[in-house]
């Protein structure tokens, strides 16, 4: 470990260059296309037009509805999954000793089972129970990966949680609710917000479930993106992609300035993403 190496400056800059090109480069064509009128092969720069963006914001397009649907679904999904996941995670992390691992395996399995297998099976199930094509059905289907994910994150917190804080506060005269509000919630905050954000993102980027269960009645942003994909309108695709990554962008910025503790820094780091 050469903490004070002489050539730090150079390799540091090099590292920067690599990381920037690795992680930002792919967004350049997306952004450029969103402002393109025509962009044929050898041209490095497109003829500029704001047509795609005008369409995105026009009152006739479905984009606005899709954004609202996606936002609404994602918000309700992320809140509901906390409501269901919180008690389960707490029980598993603090109280349930016997069968703990088996129960966790059952609860966490939907994270690692591919969406396509779940979506097809659940679609048939919902067809039979009349939940398909319903807002409720789509919501439930989004909860299928979101709840296990939240349990997974929150369980991680409770497995390392010192319940002494709660005991101490009960003895200082706090009731159950007061203990929750004054002690548990503030300690849980960073993990909880991570769980809220990521279950939001799970729902936000969900395509298969929405398309199968919703059957097209409920149009969300990913559905628009896929149908634009087949229409070959790259400009609109670029604009929709930019709209689509916006929450992700906000979250990352929020996480790197807003929260005192880095969202990804601790143990939770290994518990983020790939479902999204």
């Amino acid at each position, binding site marked *: 470990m050469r903490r004070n190496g002489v050539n730090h400056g150079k390799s540091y800059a090099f590292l920067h260059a690599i990381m920037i090109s690795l992680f930002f480069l792919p967004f350049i064509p997306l952004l450029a296309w969103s402002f*393109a*009128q*025509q*962009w*044929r*092969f050898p041209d490095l720069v497109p*003829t500029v037009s704001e047509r795609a963006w005008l*369409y995105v914001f026009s009152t*006739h*397009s*479905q984009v606005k509805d899709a954004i609202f649907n996606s936002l609404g679904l994602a918000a309700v999904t992320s809140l509901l999954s906390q409501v269901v996941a919180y008690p389960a995670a707490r029980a598993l992390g603090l*109280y*349930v*000793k*016997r*069968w703990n691992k088996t*129960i966790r395996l059952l609860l966490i399995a939907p994270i690692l089972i591919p969406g396509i297998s779940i979506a097809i099976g659940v679609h048939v*199930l919902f*067809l*039979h*129970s*009349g939940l*398909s*094509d319903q807002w409720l059905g789509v919501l439930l289907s989004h909860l299928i990966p979101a709840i296990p994910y939240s349990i997974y994150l929150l369980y991680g917190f409770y497995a390392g949680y010192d319940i002494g804080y709660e005991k101490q506060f009960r003895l200082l005269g706090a009731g159950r609710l007061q203990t929750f509000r004054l002690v548990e919630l503030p300690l849980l905050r960073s993990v909880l917000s991570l769980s809220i954000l990521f279950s939001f993102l799970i729902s936000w980027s969900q395509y298969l479930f929405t398309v199968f269960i919703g*059957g*097209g*009645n409920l*149009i969300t942003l990913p*559905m*628009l993106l*896929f*149908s*634009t994909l*087949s*229409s*070959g*309108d*790259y*400009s*609109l695709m670029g604009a929709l992609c930019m709209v689509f990554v916006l929450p992700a962008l906000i979250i990352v910025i929020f996480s790197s300035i807003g929260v005192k503790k880095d969202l990804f820094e601790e143990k939770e780091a290994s518990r983020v993403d790939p479902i999204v």
Partner: protein
Amino acid sequence: MRKKRSVKVILFLCLVSLIIAACSGKDSADKGKAAGDALLSGSWDQALAEAKGQTVNWYMWGGSDAINEFVDRKYGSVLKDKYGITLHRVPLSDTAEAVNKVLNEKQAGKNKDGSVDLIWINGENFATLKQADALFGPFATKLPNAKYVDYSNPAVGKDFGLDTEGYESVWGSAQFQFVYDSERMKPSELPHNYKELKSWAEKHPGRFTYNAPPDFTGTRFVKQLFYELSGGHQKWSKPFVQQEFDAEATKVWDYLNEVKPSLWRKGETYPKTIAELAALFNNNEVDFAFTQDIGGIATDIGKGKLPKTARPYVFDTGTIGDYHYVAIPYNAAHKAAAMVVANLILDPKLQFEKADPAKGWGDGIGIDPSKLEGANKKLYNELKAKSGETAVQADVLLKHKLPDLPAAYTPALEEGWKNLVLFQK
């Protein structure tokens, strides 16, 4: 603490819920049918009154933003302002998805309040639904604007050889055309049948490809080849016979496999959609694209999806043209409103706007010009005069128009192509 019992209880509850979930929901009620019958026998005004305030879920292929925009903007606002109907367009990447959905609902016994109100449909998808008894109707001739349509013309009254019997109402017409770039190629160099196309492709390796079936135009490209190699469309207007089909189809597979090494990417893969093909053409990766728009390609040129010098043309051996329709599923929740939409889109003025590349997307009209009178007639003549070099002359198109194959051939060709061309090493 004793957890064992609680765990057992939990697992038991889960099992129960599983069984309940698996068994529930087979209730079927046939009340929807009665309401539909009333709609068919009642007057149009009654239908209009019932439709008011309803939302129509129109499932349609969403692969063209020009179409999407026209539907949302034009139909959407007229429906809202004039009839109080909200149009909800549901984009699909394949119409089969909507067909699937209706069949799924029928299987699950959801016989009313279905989610699909209207489908943009034709060919084998219509055949599938009609044969499954999953369509509402006959409603087409009940529409006031049906007076502009000539259902006695077999090209309109029959869809892929199957009698529509009023279970679908016409919307427009289309015909397959090739698109080339007049800057890259002189008209004299163009191939005019599949035989010439093959030798052209072999002379220009990597410069030709077609979008993969089951994408609509891709299938159509293969069907035309099938006609040419089997000696014409006349002998195929009868019901599907496997042996006869197989005997002739072999030639198609041979042709396509022989031309494969000369195709773009050596035929290892194909563009998935007609839009992808257009993008390849636009980037000068291939020299041909396809279009279906009778009114020409001006719309796509205007959007920058095709070069300004792109021109359409047809093979001397002819290309397949047909009508496309809208149909209402038997369990549609908003049949009245769906009928209003089906009627509205037949309105001559809107038909002409749709056919105008500047306003619509150059789709062929679905109504019969000879049935038009007065102002409408005049508008039609104006439209006819408009078409420039970005469109093939209407009489040329008509002269080279071939009927489509009966519906049963489509899956056979698509399956055959997948197994014997695509996956063939």
